[in-house]
């Protein structure tokens, strides 16, 4: 049958199961949860096996089958969980994942499954399987291979069709069928042997019954997968040789009636209107292609822009009836937008769940001991945002494992527990999600960063100390890396700067706090969605700029007396805090304002610190739809996108993360 239409379903579901396998393998390794980990892994592997066999993905099916065999031994207690067993299982899970992807993409050549299959087999089978050599007995040339059992009654000999799946069970089913016709006095081979598949295709049953030979034959054939049946009177030795029954396909058919049904079920009948399966559906979820949701998001984005224009027109015309309708339509559009945005939200665990495995492998590779915990798994983010943020987080985690932590011995010498703590957390903060990667490792080596910065002429020669802000500024520079050697963990040429640029491209910001000997915390602040943002509109010299509310904390009027200069930098005192100031005019390359008048300060929240942005004036909040933007001047990096405002004019969106 054509299975290609199921490939997508196979992929989605198999990925979920592979992820679950990894999760439970880690639990198993920790020795947590009693029998549950093994059962859960078994179930997932088993499901993958069934699906892949159906799809005809032989390698996946074989791998999952061997994993299942091994797990079954564990479950039965005949195989103990040793580090070696764990190692094989982890390895197998990796190859399984590759094989799943490769099978669907049709590039199985890339997957090398043989080594792990051999290891699985070596552990999975207690004794090398004695290939129960099913001597292919050419039918019609030989005698029945099963001995006639002793006992009273008719002798019923049965030969199963060659390709019978689960022969033992089929034989059992046939014996059950015969039982309904009378009393069974003997079975050969024994029932236990039959069930264990320890027979060729033949078996024989002694049956005491009133039924006629024809009736018995009919019943046996109707049990399915029967190639031949013969009924002999008891003790009728002369008939010990069966008559040749040509094993044609027709002979393998259980019965004439079934054949007719089978045909009716094939395409000749397929154009009969299929009855829609609606009644009784209990599933409360549907799976939707992400592209559909993207399309919906785009449409609602356009609708939001149109609404903005309508509102402006409404304000101009000032017609009560129009305004009332507009208000109602606006509310409906807002509700619709919320629904669509919500439907795109997925919990972060969907991506975070693969990290424990990654950290474990990375730590093991370096002989480090790390306890990795994830907090805030249920925090939700837009699906596309989550997909985008996965790689940067992987990078941060790898960096932490690779450079952040010392080995257990060095940690103990430094007076710390041998086991390092690595925490990945997500929390919701108004219209932003804050993700933190925190380690209790060595901290960033400021001396080395400073030396390197001096070398590259990035700091004054006289500078002796780096602040956290300096650190962020330096580390985020493309190509700035202090790693002495390239390991296979952090890779080559991709530094933290890649994380910064990725996060900023998403409209987010990054901060780093690091203390020598205590640890490093990297904070990412991200908007909830990529496409539609609430923004504060600001005005400078008649131009409008949009500032995403993700980063807005509050706005205040600029008071001359609160301004001072600190270490050569303009700062402002706000209540207890001292905020560094940035001037939007300077950022967009305009001269300072000459006319007097009130200026405003927007207190912006960067990933982990605050700053003030001085603007000429504020023009209210608006929902904006982020459009791709192609900077003409590539040296201005202050913008992350553009948008169209309610009045139809374009505005640039400020990239808060790049401001410093």
């Amino acid at each position, binding site marked *: 049958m054509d299975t290609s239409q199921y490939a997508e379903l196979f992929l989605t579901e198999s990925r979920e199961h592979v992820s679950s396998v990894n999760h439970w393998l880690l639990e198993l390794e920790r020795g947590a949860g009693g029998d549950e980990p093994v059962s859960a892994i078994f179930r997932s592997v088993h499901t993958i096996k069934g*699906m892949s066999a159906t799809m005809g993905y032989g390698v996946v099916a074989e791998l999952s*089958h061997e994993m299942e065999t091994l797990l079954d031994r564990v479950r039965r207690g005949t195989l103990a969980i040793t580090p070696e067993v764990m190692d094989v299982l982890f390895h197998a899970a990796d190859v399984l994942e590759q094989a799943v992807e490769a099978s669907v993409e049709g590039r199985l050549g890339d997957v090398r499954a043989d080594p792990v299959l051999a290891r699985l087999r070596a552990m999975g089978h207690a004794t090398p399987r004695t290939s129960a050599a099913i001597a292919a007995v050419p039918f019609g040339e030989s005698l029945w291979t099963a001995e006639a059992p002793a006992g009273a009654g008719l002798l019923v000999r049965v030969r199963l069709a060659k390709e019978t799946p689960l022969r*033992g069970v089929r034989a059992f089913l046939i014996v059950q069928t015969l039982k309904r016709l009378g009393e069974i006095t003997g079975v050969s081979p024994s029932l236990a042997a039959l069930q264990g598949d320890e027979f060729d295709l033949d078996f024989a049953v002694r049956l005491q019954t009133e039924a006629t030979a024809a009736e018995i034959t009919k019943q046996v054939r109707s049990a399915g997968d029967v190639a031949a049946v013969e009924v002999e009177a008891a003790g009728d030795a002369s008939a010990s040789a069966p008559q040749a029954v040509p094993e044609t396909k027709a002979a393998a058919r259980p019965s004439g009636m079934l054949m007719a*049904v089978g045909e009716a079920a094939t395409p000749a009948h397929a154009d009969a209107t299929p009855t829609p399966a609606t*009644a009784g559906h209990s599933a409360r979820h549907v*799976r939707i292609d992400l592209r559909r949701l993207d399309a919906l998001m785009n449409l609602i984005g356009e609708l939001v822009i149109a609404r903005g224009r309508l509102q402006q027109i409404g304000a101009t015309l000032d017609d009560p009836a129009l305004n009332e309708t507009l208000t109602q339509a606006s509310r409906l559009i807002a509700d619709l937008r919320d629904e669509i945005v919500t439907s795109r939200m997925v919990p972060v665990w969907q991506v975070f769940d693969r990290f424990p495995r990654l950290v474990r492998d990375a730590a093991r590779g370096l002989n480090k001991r790390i306890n990795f915990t994830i907090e805030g798994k249920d925090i939700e983010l837009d699906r596309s945002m989550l997909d985008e943020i996965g790689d940067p987080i992987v990078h941060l985690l790898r960096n932490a494992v690779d450079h952040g932590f010392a080995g257990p011995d060095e940690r103990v010498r430094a007076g710390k527990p041998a086991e390092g703590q690595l925490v990945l957390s997500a929390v919701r903060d108004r219209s932003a999600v804050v993700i933190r990667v925190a380690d209790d490792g060595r901290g960033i080596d400021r001396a080395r960063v400073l030396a390197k910065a001096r070398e590259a002429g990035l700091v004054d020669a006289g500078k002796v100390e780096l602040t956290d802000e300096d650190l962020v500024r330096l580390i985020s520079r493309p190509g700035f890396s202090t790693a002495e050697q390239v390991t296979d963990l952090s890779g080559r040429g991709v530094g933290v700067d890649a994380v910064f640029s990725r996060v900023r491209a998403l409209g987010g910001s990054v901060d780093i706090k690091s203390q020598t000997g205590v640890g490093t915390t990297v904070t990412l602040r991200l908007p909830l969605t990529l496409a539609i943002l609430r923004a504060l509109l600001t005005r400078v010299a008649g131009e409008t700029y949009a500032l995403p509310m993700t980063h807005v904390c509050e706005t205040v009027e600029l008071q001359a007396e609160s301004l001072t200069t600190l270490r050569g930098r303009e700062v402002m005192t706000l209540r207890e805090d001292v905020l560094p100031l940035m001037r939007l005019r300077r950022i967009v390359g305009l001269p300072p304002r000459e006319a007097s008048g009130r200026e405003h300060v927007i207190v912006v929240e960067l990933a982990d610190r605050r700053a003030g942005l001085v603007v000429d004036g504020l023009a209210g909040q608006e929902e904006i739809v982020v459009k791709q933007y192609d900077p003409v001047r590539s040296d201005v990096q202050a913008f992350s996108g553009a948008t169209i405002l309610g009045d139809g004019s374009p505005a640039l969106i400020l990239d808060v993360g790049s401001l410093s």
Partner: protein
Amino acid sequence: MSQTVLVCDDAIFMRTMVGDILQSAGFEVVGQAESGVQAVEQYKKLRPDLVTMDIVMPDMGGIDAVREIVKFDPQAKILMCSAMGQQALVVEAIQAGAKDFVVKPFQPSRVLEAVQRVLG
């Protein structure tokens, strides 16, 4: 009127495929279940002509579900869907009252043959 089927499997993939095979043969899939518990509930509610039952499912496996369903309706017609290597479990399911079995990977013709055997 077409005959009704309840399809039980924890994988959407499998439910979809079995459902498609049966629908193309004129059956009406009236319900789906992804656990043994759901299978029993759905059976009681829908009283389908046929049940296809996966063996390995979370929340009560297929075999226990067969026991529960047969206890409720001794005439229930249940077809087990098994994988290679589950001999013992299939035997157990048949002892519990399942009528026949098919083995993954499914071939539509084999599934439909088995269905006809079950429905007699």
